[in-house]
């Protein structure tokens, strides 16, 4: 049995909406509304959802870039939501991230060697020479030669820049890397290279990934488990194969049917969800998806569905599967 590396318990993040001259709080955007999951040591967990579903907010909370409204984030043994000082620094060393657009996540005024030595200098007391050695080795690991050392980010291609961002994330030999749409800003041909690099690094360095994406084809390719999120709540969660073979939740079914598939030649009728996702300011009562769900029942409007286990490690939050 693999040990959980990171546990997120009933995480909530509400953003206040202020109005008027004195900034009175008139409501909340419920970006993340009670999310519980865990990332096991050495696994890749994918978090899938449309834009506005709260997936990036979850990442920002885990990375302590935002403070959760309530809930716990447990890394190893302890809750990290309120740590500071040396403990925070230790946590930073263990949990790293790669963001969507490398040209925004790399400082345009810094050369590659400065970008890569920054985390090293923040955490370790190394001589100038040791840092240089480490930077050279990092470049080697991600498949770039040392001529890239003195380049500025704007002199790199998208793929090269994302490799540098990955190199920075692994510089401190972390346990967990959060990948926030790591390939969405890249060309399709480069996407595959980056994904291969990520899988390779995972094996080599014993990493775990929490991958956030809306691209289902990468999910299938790289992840062990998948979690589908809609308007700040988890809809379905389970081993990736099971989710793709036998999606249970109507939302997951619709998501999967929207993936273009070059092998199926028959013109299947695609189920497209009706309308736009509702606003997270006033999310629908009961099941969040009932306003767009093809199999909505009267019960769905009233009560939030319970989480039901449909198979080993496969959980669905839908009234269709709750045993009466």
């Amino acid at each position, binding site marked *: 049995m693999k040990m959980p590396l990171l546990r997120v318990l009933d995480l909530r993040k509400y953003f206040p909406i202020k109005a008027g001259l004195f900034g009175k709080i008139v409501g909340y955007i419920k970006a993340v509304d009670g999310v519980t999951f865990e990332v096991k040591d050495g696994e890749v967990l994918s978090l899938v959802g449309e834009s506005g579903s709260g997936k990036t907010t979850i990442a920002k909370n885990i*990375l302590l870039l935002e403070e959760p409204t309530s809930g716990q984030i447990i890394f190893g043994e302890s809750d990290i939501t309120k740590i500071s000082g040396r403990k925070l620094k230790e946590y*930073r*060393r263990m949990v*790293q*991230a790669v963001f969507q657009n490398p040209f925004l*996540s790399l400082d345009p005024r810094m050369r590659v060697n400065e970008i890569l030595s920054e*985390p090293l200098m923040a955490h370790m007391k190394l001589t100038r020479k040791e840092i240089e050695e480490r930077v050279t080795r990092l470049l080697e690991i991600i498949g770039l030669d040392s001529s890239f050392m003195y380049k500025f980010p*704007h002199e790199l291609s998208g793929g090269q820049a994302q490799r540098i*961002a990955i190199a920075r994330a692994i510089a401190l030999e972390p346990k967990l890397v959060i990948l926030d749409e790591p390939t969405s800003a890249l060309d399709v041909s480069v996407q595959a290279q980056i994904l291969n690099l990520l899988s390779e690094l995972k094996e080599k360095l014993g990493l775990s990934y929490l991958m956030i994406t809306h691209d289902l084809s990468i999910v299938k390719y790289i992840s062990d488990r998948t979690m589908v999120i809609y308007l700040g709540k988890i809809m379905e969660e389970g081993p990736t194969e099971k989710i793709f073979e036998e999606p249970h939740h109507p939302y997951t079914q619709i998501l999967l049917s929207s993936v273009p598939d070059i092998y199926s030649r028959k013109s299947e009728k695609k189920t497209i969800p009706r309308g736009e996702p509702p606003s997270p300011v006033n999310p629908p009562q009961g099941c969040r998806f009932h306003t767009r769900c093809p199999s909505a029942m009267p019960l769905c409007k009233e009560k939030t569905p319970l989480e039901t286990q449909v198979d080993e490690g496969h959980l669905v939050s839908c009234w269709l599967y709750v045993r009466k």
Partner: protein
Amino acid sequence: MKQLEETRMVLNLIIRKPISLIALIIVFGFVIVGFLAPYLVPYPEDAWGLAYNVENRFSPPSLQHLFGTDALGRDVFSRVLLGARFSLMIAVGVIGIALIIGIPVGVIAGYYGGKIGNFLMRVTDMFLAFPPLLLAIVLAATLGRGLLNLIIALAISWWPWYSRLVFIQTNTIKNMPYVDSAKIAGLSTFRILYKHIIPNALTPTIVQAALDMGSAILEAAGLSFIGVGVKPPTPEWGLLVSEGWQSINVAWWIAFFPGLAILVTVTGFNLLADALRESADPRLRRTILMRLGIKQ
């Protein structure tokens, strides 16, 4: 080391463009004259306004007096030359003090936001609510005439513009993913401010400051011209113009040469600021290099 290399690159770029080169020469010349003026002036006593030579008044430009003499028979050339020193002191003093106040206020307000940020920016707004020249005139008149008072008056009316600029930049930059990345890398807040936010937020401010050097000289001259700036007989350019314009029908050179000095210097600073903006940004720099056909 790296800074030096950067500076050399920027200088190299400026030199390659004729108009920037002219601007650089003007500004360089102005600074050198500003420093060395006391040793360069042909008639030091005239320059400092210590001597009178009434029988030689209103003599037109000649070899002996390149810019002629003024109503009290003093050598205008000496006075204009020494005036560069005062203009340099004013420009550096005003912009320096304004930056020293403006940058920290803007960075702190922008990065921390909340109550502190609000308070700092409302104070800034209070100053911005006055027309800057009017505020400077009021302050200069209240503080009394004198070089230091003039610098203080101008700096006080000047810093809010910088703090506003730095505030806006900081506010944008603190939300950039590379700042998040720096946090995740474990950098301290101080290092994030110092290594990422300030360098990125400062480019427009530095360009603005370089541009403003010219305006500071111009405004100081304006204040002296209307009589709330430096005390006579200090050879400040604005004061020289003001002393000369009354007799412009008799002796055009008294007001003309200090005026020309102001014009040339201010233009030089403005052109140089343009060149700086183009070359200080590594991304813009690349386009210029390409335009000039230089491989990096």
